[in-house]
């Protein structure tokens, strides 16, 4: 496993290839369906006027996303009543739902790593080539194990989206993932899709 400290450099990102196991250490931020739609509508397309604490939240997340990682995760969080937050279970959620948004979010924020599960499609892969960036696959369902790598919860933005959809700022140590989409056009997901399609056609030809 290759140990990598956040934030990234272009050099580190370009050195990563499909299949490389990595352990991440540093600060990252969670964001999933509602957060991606909010970022795109409010700050990228600007089809929705910023309101409430939107501008303040943007100012806070922008430096974390620049050269950083977003984690597709809706955690189980303890300490909600005392605000002494602790991640109890924090595996990845399915990333493909963010495919309409992810590439534009990467370009807008200079976001260099997307962490989730199940992989993403051609729009995100194109952004990985441009920014440059990578897609890091965490093991779906490994929620207790991954929560152990979250050493501290540093804060939370947009908690009104609900606990799973809020943007949690976390400090991680040796967060485990595998590169499955790289900055050179490589995608394990595209490869497995093609190979399994050929296998399906063989099975249906009888």
């Amino acid at each position, binding site marked *: 496993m290759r140990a990598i400290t956040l934030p990234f450099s272009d050099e580190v990102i370009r050195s990563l290839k499909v299949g490389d196991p990595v352990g991440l250490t540093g600060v990252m931020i969670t964001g999933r369906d509602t957060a991606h739609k909010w970022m795109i509508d409010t700050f990228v397309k600007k089809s929705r006027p910023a309101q409430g604490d939107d501008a303040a939240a943007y100012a806070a997340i922008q430096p974390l996303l620049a050269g950083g990682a977003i984690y597709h995760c809706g955690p189980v969080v303890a300490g909600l009543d005392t605000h002494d937050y602790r991640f109890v*279970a924090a*595996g990845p959620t399915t990333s493909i739902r963010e495919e309409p948004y992810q590439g534009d979010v990467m370009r807008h924020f200079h976001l260099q790593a997307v962490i989730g599960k*199940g992989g993403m499609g051609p729009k995100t892969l194109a952004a990985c080539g441009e920014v440059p960036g990578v897609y890091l696959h965490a093991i779906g369902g490994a*929620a207790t*194990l991954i929560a*152990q790598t979250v050493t501290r919860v540093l804060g939370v933005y947009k908690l009104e989206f609900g606990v*799973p959809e809020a943007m949690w700022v976390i400090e991680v140590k040796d967060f485990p993932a595998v590169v499955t989409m790289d900055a050179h056009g490589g995608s*394990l*997901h595209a490869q497995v899709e093609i190979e*399994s399609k050929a296998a399906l056609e063989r099975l249906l030809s009888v």
Partner: protein
Amino acid sequence: MQDLTEQFVELIRRTSTDLPPDVEAALQRAQQTEAQGSAARGSFDTILQNVHMAREKSAPICQDTGTPIFYVRHPQGRSTRQLREQIRAAVVESTRRSYLRPNAVDSVTDQNSGNNLGDSAFPTVHFEEVEGDELVVDLLLKGGGCENVGAQYSLPNSSLGAGRDLEGVRRVVLDAVHRAQGQGCAPGVLGVAVGGDRGSSYYASKEVLFRKIGEASPDPKLAALETRLTEEANQLGIGPMGFGGKTTVLGVHLTGMHRLPACFFVTMSYMCWAHRRRRMTVRGEQVEIA
């Protein structure tokens, strides 16, 4: 009337944090089939390590604790209204204790209720009156990732060459597994209802997931198709997490239903590897969770 709220909390805790032995054994068998050093092998290593850790720490195996789906078989005279109230109270308490993530989102206002209570279908509670004195409560925690890759086909389906027979069923199930890739947290367990209407078949496709892995359908034709589909789905090579590998499904469970002459539905519910199901049996004051 007996108050079972605390026992329901324990049922939820066990289901969320302690994977059933048959599922864990199937994952261990799958781990051994993958080559050392492969991404697939690494996935199984992590999955099994997480299963141990969740049990030890009494923490959720997966953060998506899903829709709690209860199947309650109760003796005559038991108040289902009171049982529902106790189940709902237990869901709130389990959320407070972090055994469940607050998962109930109002689709119109987008508000998360914060305590896992939504409309009458959230949590889902099915009641059935049965003979005898026992109260049996089955619980399935089914997350959203795998729920999203469930599928329903109306036969015939010409693009898949699927007619209205078991060969047609075979074809559409393999197509559904291919479409799911790793998105539903492969290797999954498939619950498939053959027949029924659009609603009843989805219900049945989830209920059949309570069979243990390897427990065959009582119908020999369906049992043979279960074996064949398990082997063929694994030949797709999708593997754990969609990384490529020898195990794409841990098992396939089929159930046959009556249908209308005009309809032939095949309905698949995909359950992720974190197949969280437990059963609570109440005999008088004695409560057992298995």
